[in-house]
């Protein structure tokens, strides 16, 4: 760039050689990181490339990487596929419901567990944590009978309730961590100014825990959007099936159309990627806080 004044190509080459001002030394750490990132992102990139590769090129796709005639047919197909759209809507509705209910309950419970000292607090605090360790497979059998009794099988409501229950304990702990960081003095001031306990919660704690609310909302969204086993077991018609169950049905078909199914995969992963990248900082902080303190 600095040598643009010299018109001659040869001269330009010459002037470039003797001035290696910036020493570009690549430390081996960066090499390892690049390899790691390729290992992590490669499968996603490959899923995307496959989704734009026409079926007749699948045989040579691994050798060519980028297809000769890339097309978006798979996405057009999915956009007009009733089933996929229905599954996507179900997933979205269940996720939104789960996020709203989980965040509200976790905010209430997290505030109480952070701010109030009462008999049974420790019991509640560690009880919820212990319940989290129960095997899914132990829960799913009695839960199935319970859902059937209450007519919640094969409903979006049913899935929402189950997801709320299973994301609640981590969400509550995450929220409690955020409330712990709010100085008590602010609430005391509000109390002295005549706020009731619930008003201090509404007007002091809620606005100050917005990052926590965002983290919990993202966590419960990702959980609900990704969850597979309960969705598979508790739904048996398109009324309540979510995207993961739909993908499983596609995979199970005798002749898999890899272009279509990877396109569905790309569409399914996008909301999670966006949400996760937005909230990863606070999510990671919440994840590591408990473990590092011991």
């Amino acid at each position: 760039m600095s040598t643009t004044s010299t018109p001659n190509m040869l001269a330009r080459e010459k002037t470039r050689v003797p001035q290696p001002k910036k020493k570009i030394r690549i430390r081996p750490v960066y090499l390892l990181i690049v390899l790691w990132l390729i290992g992590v992102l490669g499968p996603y990139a490959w899923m995307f490339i496959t989704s734009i590769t026409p079926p007749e090129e699948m045989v040579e796709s691994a050798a060519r990487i980028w297809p000769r005639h890339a097309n978006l047919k798979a996405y057009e197909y999915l956009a007009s596929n009733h089933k996929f759209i229905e599954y996507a809507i179900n997933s979205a509705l269940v996720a939104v419901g789960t996020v709203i209910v989980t965040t509200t309950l976790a905010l209430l419970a997290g505030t109480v567990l952070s701010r109030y000292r009462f008999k049974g607090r420790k019991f509640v605090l560690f009880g919820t944590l212990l319940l989290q360790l129960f095997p899914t497979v132990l829960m799913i059998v009695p839960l199935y009978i319970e859902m059937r009794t209450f007519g919640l099988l094969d409903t979006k409501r049913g899935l929402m309730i189950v997801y709320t229950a299973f994301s609640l304990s981590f969400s509550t702990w995450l929220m409690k961590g955020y409330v712990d960081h709010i100085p008590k003095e602010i609430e005391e001031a509000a109390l002295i100014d005549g706020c009731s306990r619930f008003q201090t919660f509404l007007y002091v704690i809620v606005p100050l825990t917005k990052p926590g609310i965002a983290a919990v909302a993202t966590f419960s969204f990702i959980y609900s959007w990704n969850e597979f086993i309960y969705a598979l077991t508790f739904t048996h018609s398109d009324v309540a099936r979510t995207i993961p169950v739909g993908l499983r049905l596609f995979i199970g078909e005798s002749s898999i159309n890899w272009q279509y199914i990877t396109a569905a995969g790309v569409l399914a992963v996008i909301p999670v990627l966006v949400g996760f990248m937005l909230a990863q900082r606070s999510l990671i902080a919440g994840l590591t806080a408990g473990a590092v303190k011991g």
Partner: protein
Amino acid sequence: MTRAVPPFSPPVVSTTQDRPFWRMKDLPTHWLMLAPALIVVSGLILYPAINAVWLALTDTNILDLADQKFVGLYNFEEALKSDSFWLSLLHLMIWVIGCVGGQLIFGMIGANILNQKVRGRAMIRGVVLVPWATASILVALMWLWMLNPNFGIVNHYLRVIGLLNGPQDWLGDPMTALPTLILIDVWQGVAFFSVMLLAALQSVPKEMLEAAKIDGASPWQSFWRLTLPYIMPTVLITVVLRVVWTANYFDLILVVTNGGPANSTLTLPLHAYSTAYQDFDFGMAAALGIIQAVILAVPVIAYVRHVLKKEAA
């Protein structure tokens, strides 16, 4: 400012000092605020968990719920007598040791890489954690395609570098199916370990490491003798949580191989799941679930006892 100190402290201040300023009369508010969460959790986790114990003692079949008989410990006896139980338990052990071991080793390496002076660490940390936030069904989908015996990109490049000739169906061969699944799980979970261990590594006092350096310790020595003991509590809790979580995780196996080929990837939770939803034997499935829970209680209790002992010392 210059007023004399009153003989008694003003009530508002005193209540904030040694005990929280909320008093007994406020009690109902917090139980009210806690109630919705408690109701949901006890209704959908606690109650079913207790119900599972009852189910395990019956011959409940989901096709005919009305015909439910108490059979005592029959399900447990039958389970312990069956070969498939012991086989699935063995697979579970291999699965857990392979997955958690692999994640711990590679996670530790990753954490140490990220703990170097690296630009954009927060960004990298976020990106490598993406698989952990990806649905198991999508992980299964991506790897099924990449490991496809005919068109898969993995086999293609293994052939290019000469490590493989001819077709190889990694997931269809009973010898390689479980190890392949373990590798996929390590791929998905390794960053979780890295992020946890990185947080711990960053809490290691720099002075300690510098002092060791001045005293002539090699980086390798100071890692094993200083850093590792310092971050041990985090390593332990992460491993325990991960063991429990990995043991209970069967989504991936269910989608990728569903226990096959020839039951070579059948782990205990998957065995319990198919007992419930292929054989419809809910009583037996609940019994297997309880056995699973009891087995997993062992590492948790061992961990808690270890922590309590340390605190007492």
